[in-house]
């Protein structure tokens, strides 16, 4: 043992690569059943894009839960809100979106995403202050209050934007597909995947390279210890809650452009997938959330191709299998 070792930090925990390989395993297992290579490539690309979008929505949920044990059933409302913000930004600018120019369309997307971040963050703050704060530490009441909050928020969206679906076409240059040999990959899916990856990299860097990120990670591991060291974790939590709402909004924008329509009930439906993702990934773990979102996206698309009626059942089976294998999710955090 050299002298350096005494001054060195604690030995790094062994990285656990097995769960990270599961999406690859799933893809390889399913591949023979798909039939043609081109369909497989298309489906895999679609699954990755869907996974990235779900990850964007679910990452905030898992951090919020990890820090304060708050399971926010109102999260779906922020997804819908983000989607409606996208319609507010993109529909008036529809004539720009007609122009087939990548820089202009990317700028439009960035504008919509920025608007969603700001609006959802603000409403996240309001939601946290009005609905969550009065019931801190009371588990059952918290669940009930956020359920009530989600009902009210969804109904408010209906009241403000009307009960009908709003069609939302993606900007011109995101339409159509890249053709690789026989396989067609829709352009917008590539865009969504890139945005999701940017969010993941940004989130990982923010959590691992900044002081606030360090505190957040510590808070997820053991809230009381961080409080005992003198940090006002409730203030930190407000920020995390707002960031989570913003991320949900970003996911909502991406999803609305992907489905090309917006409806207030979409948040509730996506929340189901988000819950599956954060359970499978391990509550509180961003990395686990990333892997499990990819898993869920891939399985949803494969199952949707092989047995269209069973896509959601396939994801429930995924949850069952993972919980049998690792009862606390792929990457369990702290004492959870």
């Amino acid at each position: 043992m050299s002298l350096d070792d005494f001054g060195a930090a604690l030995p790094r925990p062994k990285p656990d690569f097995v769960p990270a390989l599961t999406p690859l395993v799933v893809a390889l297992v399913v591949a023979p059943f798909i039939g043609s290579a081109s369909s497989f490539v298309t489906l895999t690309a679609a699954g990755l894009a869907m996974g990235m979008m779900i990850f964007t929505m679910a990452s905030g949920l898992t951090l919020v839960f990890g820090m304060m044990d708050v399971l926010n059933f109102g999260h779906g409302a922020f997804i819908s809100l983000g989607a409606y913000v996208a319609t507010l930004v993109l529909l008036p600018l529809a004539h720009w979106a007609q122009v087939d120019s990548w820089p202009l369309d990317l700028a439009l997307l960035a504008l919509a995403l920025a608007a969603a971040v700001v609006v959802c963050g603000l409403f996240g703050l309001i939601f946290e202050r009005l609905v969550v704060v009065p019931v801190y530490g009371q588990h059952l009441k918290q669940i009930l209050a956020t359920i009530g909050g989600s009902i009210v928020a969804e109904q408010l969206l209906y009241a403000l934007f009307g009960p009908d679906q709003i069609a939302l076409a993606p900007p011109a240059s995101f339409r159509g597909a890249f053709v690789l040999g026989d396989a067609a990959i829709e352009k917008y899916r590539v865009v969504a995947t890139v945005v999701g990856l940017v969010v993941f990299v940004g989130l990982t860097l923010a959590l691992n390279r900044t002081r606030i990120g360090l505190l957040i990670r510590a808070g997820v591991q053991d809230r009381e210890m961080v409080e005992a060291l003198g940090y006002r974790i409730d203030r930190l939590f407000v920020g995390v809650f707002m960031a989570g709402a913003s991320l949900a909004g970003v996911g909502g924008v991406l999803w609305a452009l992907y489905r090309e329509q917006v409806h207030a009930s979409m948040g509730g439906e996506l929340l189901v997938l988000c819950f599956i993702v954060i359970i499978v990934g391990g509550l509180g773990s961003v990395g686990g959330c990333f892997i499990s979102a990819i898993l869920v996206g891939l399985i949803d698309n494969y199952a949707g191709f092989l047995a269209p009626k069973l896509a959601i059942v396939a994801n429930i089976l995924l949850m069952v299998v993972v919980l049998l294998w690792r009862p606390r999710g792929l990457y369990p955090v702290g004492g959870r």
Partner: protein
Amino acid sequence: MILSGRPPRGRTLQALVIAVTLALALAPFLFPGVKPLNVAAKVCVYALLGASYDLLLGYAGMVSFAHVMFFGVGSYGVGLALYGLGPSWGAVALGLAAGLAVSTLLALAIGLFSLRVQAIFFTMVTLAVSYAFNVLASQLDWLTGGEDGRSFRVPEILQPGFRLIDREAFGVALGGRQVSYYLVLVGCVVVFLALLRIVNSPFGRVLEAIRENPFRAEALGYRIVFHRTLATCLAAAGATFAGALNALWLRYVGPDTALAGSIQIATLVVVVIGGMGTLYGAILGAALFVVAQNYLQTLLGAVSTAAGDAGLPLLPGLFHPDRWLLWLGLLFILAVYFAPAGLVGALSREDDTTP
């Protein structure tokens, strides 16, 4: 009261529970007519649905999103059996038995999978499973009739054309609807009393102990997973009964009447506004909820039109009759904050001597 070591406390509360029960018992004679009888039957069904949910929410302290799914299993069980086998009591029994078996197995599976680690998993897993069940029920249209559902014929004695006796009793013709109503009422009362017996048994006390302090209960030697899973199964069975009775009453089963998310929300509202952890609360909550649902919409419609006439922005949308869930949701949040014991808690406070 019967079968219970803990009768409702407080004069007003007792009077109210007795009044609602009596009104339900005599509904065909007190409020003759088609619509009032429908309202009364709905109150019965929601009271049972709420009471069985209270076993989970109030006694075990668990939030489930799958309660409406078990309700749907009961509805579809009886409905599809009558649809497939024709109107006979054998089909009703078979459908109910099948529904109970499916519900219990589903509840067992959900409980065993999700309760091993953390109670919060349970809530999320029930949401996912009931969502998947909804999708399946609407996709498998060869079995369930898809979005259209299935209309079916009920045994003869329950059909509207049937006459029990030729004369009128107390000015009301006793026909199949009245027989059906009493079937629903008696069914609900029997299962309600069974639930009452369960929550006042040692098992019910252990559930409360687990709700208050899981670690302590476990340290005292009670197996948490077993108790919580059993509670899930019992509550599921209660919801299945409610669903079966509802299907018999409606003579129709479909996603709107058996699986809609709004039924799940209604159940939550019934229990929370009535009072968690009391069972009686569900009766009061159901009566209040169903009446409110029927008359709130009319009221909202009036306000909405008035606001529209006055030219106010936004308000017509907010008070639109379809937005009644908005106001119910607000009431729900306020109840969670300020009156967690609900109506029962507010009414029994006055002469609350025993702790």
